[in-house]
C-alpha cells in the first residue's frame, strides 16, 4: 500500500490553512505546499478550480532517480524523502519534478520538500496539512493503485503521482446574473491573468553558470575533436584550461558547494551524475593530451568528447521531454559538431549543419515574441547564419576572421536560447497555458454565437 493525498476540489476554498500548517509544523519555507488556482481572476466564461499540492510522492519519482547526490530515499509506504544533509543544492530535481514539489531554500542552499510530516508519522498522526484543513478537502489515502483520470491541464509525465483528485467535475462556475460575459469587457483581466510570460532575462541570469559551463565544454570538445581528426595536437593546453574552468564554474552553481563531490554518487540512474563523470573523464583526457601528446589514441579522444556532449544533452532531455528541445540547434552535441565542421573538410558538412541550424531557427520563430533579451539572442542567431556565408565568400583574412567571430557569436546565442527554450513541465505554466487556450476557445465560441444570433 502506498500513501498519497486525496484532494477534493469541491471542498477547497483556497484558505491556505494547509500551507500555513506545513510551515508551522516543519519550519519549511513558504510554498513547500502551494495553492494553484485555475482561473484565478474568476473570469466568468470558465470555472474556478483550486488545487492544493505539495509532493505527490510519485511511484516513479524522477526527483529521486535523477538526483546526482543520492539525497532521496523512498520509504516503505512510498514516501519520497529528501535528506538535506546529503543535498548539494544543484536544483536538478526542481527541473524534473512537474509539480513544483522540491524547492531550493535560497537561504540554506539545499532543497526542501514535503516528507509526509515524517515526525508525525512515527506517532501515527496524519500530516499537518491534512489535520489543518478546515473543510476536510485534504485527506491521506492508502492505495495500491493511484491510477485515475487527472484533468487535462495536470502535467502527467508518466511518473505516477500518488494523488487522488476529486470534485474536479464540480462546476466551480455558478450561473451569474446579471452576467458580464461580454468577452471584450474581460480583455483587461485576461491580459492581466494570462500574460504571465516568464521573466526570461531573469531566468538566464539564474542559469548563467550552467550556460558558461556548457559553452566551455562545447568549445573544449570541439577543439579536441578537431585536433584528433586532423592529427595535429597544437594548443593542447587550451582544452584542459577550458575543462578546468567549466568544473570551477559548475561548483558555483551549487547551493552547497562543499558537497560537490556527491555529484558522482548516482551514476546508476541520474543523468546529472553521468554528465559529471563524463566531464571529469574529458578533463583528465584533455590533461593527458596536454602533458603527453599523442599518448591517447585519437578515436578515444573523439569518443570521450562525443559521449560527454551527449551526456550534457541528456541532462536536459531528462527534464524537458519536448520535441522543441530535442530538435534545438543549441544543444551541446549539435553545437560542438557544428563548430568542428567549420574546421574540417569537406565544406559540405558545414553547409549541411548550417542548413539544419536554419531549420531549427525557423521552427523557433515564436522566440521573436519574447522579451528583449530573447529577441536579441534570436536575431543574433538567425542573422549570423546567412551573414557568415556572405563573409566567407570574399575569402580575405579580415572577412574570414569576422566570419569566425560571427559564427561563434551565433552559436553562443543559440546555446543561450537553448536555456531559454528549456522549459521542463511545470504545473504553474501548465495551468496558465491551458487556461489561456481554453479561455480563448470559449471566447471565440461566444463571439461566433453572438455573431450568429
Amino acid at each position: 500500500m502506498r500513501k498519497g493525498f486525496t484532494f477534493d476540489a469541491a471542498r477547497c476554498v483556497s484558505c491556505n490553512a494547509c500551507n500555513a500548517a506545513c510551515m508551522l509544523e516543519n519550519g519549511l519555507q513558504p510554498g513547500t505546499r502551494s495553492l494553484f488556482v485555475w482561473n484565478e481572476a474568476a473570469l466568468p466564461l470558465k470555472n474556478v478550480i483550486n488545487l492544493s499540492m505539495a509532493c505527490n510522492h510519485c511511484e516513479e519519482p524522477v526527483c529521486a532517480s535523477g538526483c546526482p547526490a543520492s539525497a532521496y530515499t523512498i520509504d516503505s509506504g512510498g514516501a519520497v524523502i529528501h535528506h538535506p544533509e546529503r543535498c548539494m543544492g544543484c536544483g536538478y530535481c526542481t527541473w524534473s519534478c512537474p509539480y513544483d514539489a522540491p524547492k531550493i531554500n535560497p537561504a540554506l542552499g539545499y532543497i526542501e520538500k514535503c516528507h509526509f510530516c515524517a515526525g508525525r508519522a512515527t506517532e501515527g498522526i496524519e500530516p499537518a496539512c491534512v489535520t489543518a484543513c478546515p473543510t476536510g478537502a485534504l485527506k491521506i489515502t492508502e492505495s495500491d493503485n493511484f491510477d485515475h483520470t487527472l484533468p487535462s491541464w495536470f502535467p502527467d509525465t508518466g511518473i505516477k503521482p500518488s494523488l487522488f483528485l476529486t470534485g474536479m467535475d464540480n462546476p466551480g462556475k455558478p450561473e451569474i446574473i446579471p452576467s458580464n460575459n461580454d468577452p471584450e469587457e474581460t480583455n483587461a483581466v485576461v491580459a492581466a491573468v494570462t500574460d504571465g510570460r516568464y521573466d526570461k532575462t531573469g531566468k538566464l541570469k539564474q542559469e548563467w553558470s550552467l550556460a558558461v559551463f556548457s559553452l566551455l565544454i562545447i568549445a573544449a570538445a570541439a577543439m579536441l575533436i578537431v585536433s584528433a581528426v586532423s592529427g595535429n595536437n597544437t594548443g593542447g593546453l587550451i582544452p584542459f584550461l577550458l575543462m578546468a574552468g567549466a568544473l570551477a564554474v559548475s561548483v558555483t552553481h551549487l547551493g552547497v558547494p562543499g558537497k560537490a563531490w556527491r555529484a558522482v554518487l548516482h551514476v546508476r540512474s541520474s543523468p546529472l551524475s553521468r554528465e559529471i563523470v563524463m566531464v571529469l573523464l574529458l578533463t583528465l583526457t584533455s590533461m593527458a593530451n596536454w602533458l603527453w601528446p599523442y599518448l591517447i589514441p585519437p578515436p578515444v579522444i573523439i569518443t570521450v568528447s562525443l559521449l560527454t556532449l551527449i551526456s550534457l544533452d541528456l541532462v536536459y532531455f531528462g527534464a524537458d521531454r519536448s520535441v522543441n528541445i530535442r530538435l534545438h540547434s543549441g544543444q551541446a552535441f549539435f553545437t560542438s559538431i557544428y563548430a568542428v565542421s567549420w574546421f574540417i573538410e569537406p565544406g559540405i558538412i558545414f553547409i549541411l549543419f548550417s542548413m539544419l541550424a536554419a531549420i531549427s531557427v525557423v521552427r523557433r520563430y515564436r522566440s521573436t515574441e519574447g522579451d528583449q533579451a530573447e529577441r536579441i539572442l534570436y536575431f543574433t542567431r538567425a542573422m549570423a547564419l546567412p551573414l557568415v556565408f556572405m563573409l566567407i565568400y570574399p575569402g580575405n583574412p579580415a572577412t574570414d576572421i569576422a566570419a569566425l567571430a560571427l559564427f561563434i557569436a551565433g552559436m553562443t546565442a543559440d546555446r543561450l536560447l537553448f536555456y531559454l527554450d528549456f522549459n521542463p513541465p511545470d504545473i504553474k505554466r501548465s495551468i496558465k497555458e491551458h487556461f489561456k487556450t481554453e479561455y480563448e476557445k470559449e471566447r471565440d465560441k461566444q463571439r461566433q454565437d453572438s455573431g450568429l444570433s
Partner: protein
Amino acid sequence: MKEFVTVCPRNCYSTCSFRIFTEGGRVKRILPFEGNLATPEGPCIKGLAYLEREYSADRLIYPLRKQPDGSFIRIGTDEALSIIADRLTTARAKHGPHSVLFYKGSGYSGLSNDIAGNFWRLFGGATTTYGNLCWPAGLEAVRLTMGEVKHNVPWDLANASMIILWGKNPAETNVQEMIHIDRAKKNGARVVVIDPRRTLTADKADLLIRPRPGTDAALALAMARVIIDRGLTDKEYISRNVTGFEKFASSLDMTPDKAQMITGIPASTIIDLAVAAAGAGRLTVVAGYGLQRYTNGGQTIRSILSIPVITGMIGRPGCGFNFASLQSYIFDDLKEPLSYYPDPGSDKPFRRAISMATFGPDFFALKDPPIEVAWIERGNPVTQLPGSGEAVKALESVPFKVVVDQFMTDTAAMADIVLPAKGIFEQADVVGSYWNPYIQYKPKVGDPPGEVIPESEIYRCLAELIGMNPGPGSGIPAPDEYEGWLIERISHTTGFMLEELMRGPVIPDQNEHPAYAGMEFNTPSGKIELWSDRAAEIWGVNPLPSYDPPDDYGESHLPFRLMTPNIASRIHSQFGNLGVIRHVTGGPAWEISDADAARKGLKSGDRIRIFNSRGEVKGRVTVTARVKEGSLIFPNGIWLSEGGGVNRLIEPRETDMGHGAAFHNTRVDIEKITL
C-alpha cells in the same frame, strides 16, 4: 505531551474547538476536535497561527511607557499600575468617574471579560461606548420580528433542499459552514449566493445573483411579492404564527420590474428565484453581516427575513433564517442587541455612553466632564472605527491613554502606557458562540510569558491601589480565586455540569432545535411580527419591512461604492501581523472590476490614490472579475503599517436600527499614481 480540548475566543462565527498538545506549558501542536459537530475538521489558518501568535517575538510581554520622543521603554508592572492608578484617582477626584473612557472591542470573548465591567462599576462608572461596529442592525431586525435571535444548529444545513447565502461569504468568514453546505449539495440541495461580489463562496454555488450594493431589500421584497401574488405562501403557518401579514401583503408595492430598476437584477430572475425558494420545501436563508452595514441595514434584514416567514420556514429542520444564534449566551443577563442600547437596564446611572459608530463626533460633543483618561482593551479602534480620522484626533486629545494588547497595534502605538494582554492559553475561560450551539471551556495550559498578567489580575491590582476593596464578592477575583469565580459565575445557570464542560463543548439543555420549534416568539404579540410597532417606535422606521435607498453621504457623484469585507486570513485587525499569515497571503490589495480598470487605465499592480471628502489613502490594485463594476474592495482591519487606514474614508454613521455602523454606504473615487 499533554492534551487539552480548547476553543478559539475570537469574534468569529465558527468558535472552533480544537485539541492542543503542550510540552512544558507551551502549545506544540493543534489537531481537530471531531466532537464539535459544527467544526469537526481543522481550525482555520488563524487558529493554526496561534502556534506562532502566542509565542511570537513581537508579542508584548512587559509594560511599556511612552517617552517624550514617542518611543516606548519597558517599565515594571508595579510602576505601570501605580502610574495608572494615580491618573485614574486624580481624574475621578477632579472630574468624576465619567472623565474616564472605557473602550472595549471584540478581540477576545469569554466570561472573564465581565471582570472589566465589575471594575468600572466599582470605580463609580465610566464613559463607555454603546452600539457595536458589526451586526446590531441585523440582530435588532431579527429580535423585532421573532423576539429572539437564534437559528438551527449549523450541521442542520445539510438537511436543506435550498440554501440562499445572502451577502454571506462563509468560505472566508465561517469556513466550517462550507462543510455543511457541501453536504447539502451532495444531498441534492441548490445553493444560491446573493452578493455583489463573486466571493470564494460563490465559486461553490449553482447561481450567483449580483445586485447593486445596498439594494438587497428591494430584491427580497420583490421576491415576497411574487410569492404572495402566486399564492405560494404557507397560509396556515401564517395565520397561526405571523402578525401583520395582511398589511404587509396589501402595501407591498415592490414589483419585480421595479426591483429590476433598483437592483439591476432582471425581473425574470427575481420571479424564478422567488418561485424556487417558495417551492424548495426546506429553505434556509443565511444572511451575512456586510449587507446590514448600511443605513438601511435593519430594514434589509427584515425584508429578507420575510421570505422564510411567509413560506413557513421558521421552526423546522433544514429550514430557517440564519443570521446569528445566541442560544449559547446563557450567562448573560442582557443579550445582544439589547446590551448595545445606550443605557441598558441597571447600567443607566453608572455610565455615560457615546456611540461606537459615531465615536469621533460624539467624543468631541462630550463636554462635562472631558475625557482625562482612556482605557482601551480587546480592540483596535484606530483601524476599526468608521471615520477613523476623527476618532484618532479624539484619542490624541486624551491626556492619558492605557491600551491593553498582545501586540503593538496602531492603537497601542498611541498609548501612554501599554499593558501586555494575556494569551488565549494562559487563563481559563468559558466561551459561547453566535453560530454553533456550544458552550466551551478554554483551559489554562501554561503561564503567561514575561511580566504578562491576565486582565483580571490587572484590574485586581488596580482596585487595590485605588482602594476599591477587590475580592471574591466584588467580582474582581485574585488569581487563586479566579477558577472559583468562574464556576460561581456559571453555576446559577442550568443545563450542564462544569466537569462535563471541561471535557469538551456542551450544548445546554435549554438549546431549542429546531430553533423556534415551539412556535413561541418573545414579541409583544407572541407571534412573528412582520408588522412591528416597536420598530417604528424605537427606530422611526416603517413598521413593515421596506426598501429605503442607501444614503450616499452626499457623494452620489463619486463612482465607486467602497466595501471593506472580512477576509480569511484575519479577524478584523487581528492576525495580519504574523509571519505565517503574511507569507501565505501576501499584502493587501484594492480589488477593482475589469471594466472599471479599463476605464481608469489600470492594470494589476498599479498604484492608486483612493479619496473622498473625508480623506485619502494609497495602495495597489488587483484587477479581477470577482468585483462588480462600480465597487471597490479592500479588506477591513489592515493596520496603518500594512498600508491600511481605509476607515478614514468612511463616514461615521449609525445604521437604521440597533446602533450599528453603516460602513458600506461610503462612496469614493480613485486615480492612478506613480509613487
